[in-house]
């Protein structure tokens, strides 16, 4: 794992500060992650440039799942991997997603969740939000064929009523078209937040209590989990969460479901996160000892 851990106490204070500052992507942190876009025009240009850039070496290839990379054990693969795609132009890497899904499906991962847009992101400038919505729509439409070829089933979670009508329709159509695919389930979290998910589940349960369908004593962890939006999946709780761009927080993503997930924070921005970095995350995951509170004696 990248050394985002605190150095040993024997290091001098100034080298400690220097080491910590190296983790920040240069220039992108001056005003916080989401305020790093100077103007919408620059944002649009960066999206366009990243989208049209040629694939890097080691990029995911469509239809090229191949065998398990060296060092990884199939029996210890996480069943559900979640990714917070942090960094500029996150959705511009459109060519990566279906190919990546195909690869990880071949390695034994059953569910891949991507955090595309948080409910807190609605406060961003309107033009930026519109640009992102347009980008989502374009990506889903153009990549649908690839998703079908890779056997990916698409599911949307989040408060979809806030999305533009056209994007809602695109997602509904994509879900319908891919519903019989079974190689990998791709859960796309748009206009989603962990608290919103828990609150909507609790509201439903409260309603059932009020109606007399449930007793207060019947409210349990299992019941809440069944009412969460991730109940559309066989494995609702991620085993591994990857977050790019060096941010060491969950940002209100899948709070309930990530209770026991292994967290892997990467300094690289999302556009620079490729196959090699993903394999590194999986290697780190497989080396960890997961105890779930009890002891392994």
């Amino acid at each position, binding site marked *: 794992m990248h050394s*985002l*851990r*605190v*150095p*040993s*106490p024997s*290091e001098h204070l100034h080298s*400690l*500060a220097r080491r*910590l*500052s190296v983790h920040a992507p240069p220039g992108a942190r001056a*005003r*916080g992650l989401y*305020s790093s876009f100077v103007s919408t025009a620059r944002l649009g240009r960066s999206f366009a440039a990243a989208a049209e850039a040629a694939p890097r070496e080691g990029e995911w290839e469509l239809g090229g799942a191949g065998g398990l990379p060296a060092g990884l054990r199939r029996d210890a693969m996480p069943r559900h991997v979640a990714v917070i795609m942090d960094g500029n132009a996150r959705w511009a890497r459109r060519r990566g997603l279906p190919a990546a899904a195909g690869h990880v499906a071949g390695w034994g991962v059953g569910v891949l969740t991507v955090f595309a847009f948080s409910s*807190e992101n609605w*406060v961003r400038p309107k033009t930026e939000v519109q640009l992102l919505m347009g980008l989502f729509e374009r990506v889903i439409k153009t990549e649908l064929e690839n998703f079908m070829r890779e056997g990916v089933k698409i599911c949307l979670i989040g*408060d*979809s*009523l806030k999305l533009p*009508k056209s994007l*809602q329709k695109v997602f509904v159509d994509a879900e319908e078209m891919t519903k019989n695919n079974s190689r990998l389930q791709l859960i796309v979290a748009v206009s989603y*937040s*962990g608290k919103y998910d*828990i*609150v*909507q589940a*609790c*509201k*439903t*349960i*409260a*309603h*059932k*209590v*009020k*109606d007399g369908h449930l007793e*207060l*004593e019947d*409210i349990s*962890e299992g019941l*809440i989990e069944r009412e969460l939006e991730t109940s559309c999946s066989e494995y609702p709780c991620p085993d591994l969460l990857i977050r790019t761009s060096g941010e*060491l*927080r*969950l*940002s*209100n993503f899948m*709070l*309930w479901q*990530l*209770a*026991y*997930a*292994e*967290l892997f*924070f990467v300094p690289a921005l999302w556009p620079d996160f490729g196959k090699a970095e993903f394999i590194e995350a999986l290697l780190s995951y497989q080396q960890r000892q997961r105890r*779930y*509170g*009890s*002891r392994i*004696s």
Partner: protein
Amino acid sequence: MGNESSWSGSQCLSTLNNFFRKYLFRVLSCGAIPTHIAFIMDGNRRFAKKQNMVEGEGHRAGYKSLISMLNYCYELGVKYITVYAFSIENFKRKPEEVQYLMDLMVEKIDELLREGSIVNQYGMRLYFIGNLKLLSEEVRTAAEKAMKATAHNNRTVLLICVAYTSYDEIVHAVQESCEEKMNNIQAENTSKAGRNSTEQNGSCEKMNGVHPHEIQDCHKREVHGTVILGKNEICCNGFSKLEASEKKNGVIKRAVPGFNGEKWNEVQQSMQSQLSKGTIESGEDGETIQEIKPLLSKGTIESGEDGETIQEIKPLINLVDIEKHMYMAVAPDPDIVIRSSGETRLSNFLLWQTGYSPLYSPAALWPEIGLWHLVGVVLHYQRNYSYLQKKRKQS
């Protein structure tokens, strides 16, 4: 003679250390200091194994490390500290280990309540956070005694999570919220017995549990979605995904006239606001209201008795209710979470409260955690401070 000189030497060193630490904290205080730090105290057993100690001694060493860290934090100016002492999942450990930990807890609670302890030194209020009913009577009594004895303290706060998981906390909060609301409804129904709740006189008093003005209240409480009007009823959609169980050709009928004019204006205004937000639109005939998208059933809408109307039930609980009943409602959200021993997972600790808190995982085992780790934590917090404040305001 030798002993005296070595004693004065160590005293001198200690004084120098204190002086250096005070100066260091003064420098750090030029920037923002976290108000609330949460610690996951991981690695006691591994420390014992590493030092060839008996397993239980690792927990004792962990306690010493905790006291040391509390001293540093409170001296620095941190007000709230939360520690993950014992998870509900930890009950699955060997019974001997669980019993040892419980005995240690009772012993240390007793120690904390004595004169001259850190509790008195920093005016510390103690909270034991978790499902205390799962603890043995001895431990529960000791915890309750400590909370009562320190209830008057207000300078600093120590929250000790015992028999705790976030899942349990949320379930408990939902149960309490439901119970409170059900009691309120029963009390309200009892007091309103015999009142006329029909629309015969055009009144728009509360009907079927919903006031028209609550539509606007709903908007304030993060309601998204449509305003649904049924025959003779005004309903408020408090959810983001709903399914109309009865509607004609996908269109919900407008309420019939006969309402009190003032209230009808309020409803009209709400509808206008919904129209401008784009969550509802006029149907082709300009009269009907059309939903934007098919709604999913959450059991929150049901047919009226005539089979034509749609009535919706106001949500029983919302986010504010749940937060009010959390065990951790006594403290603000943590500014930073630290897990020792290099593991990077939350293990069901403060999931609700740490959505935006930076996570920090030093490789050192908990008994090895010291001053420099705290300095690193504070520097890390100061680097993220403006971003954190922005996120807090947004949420």
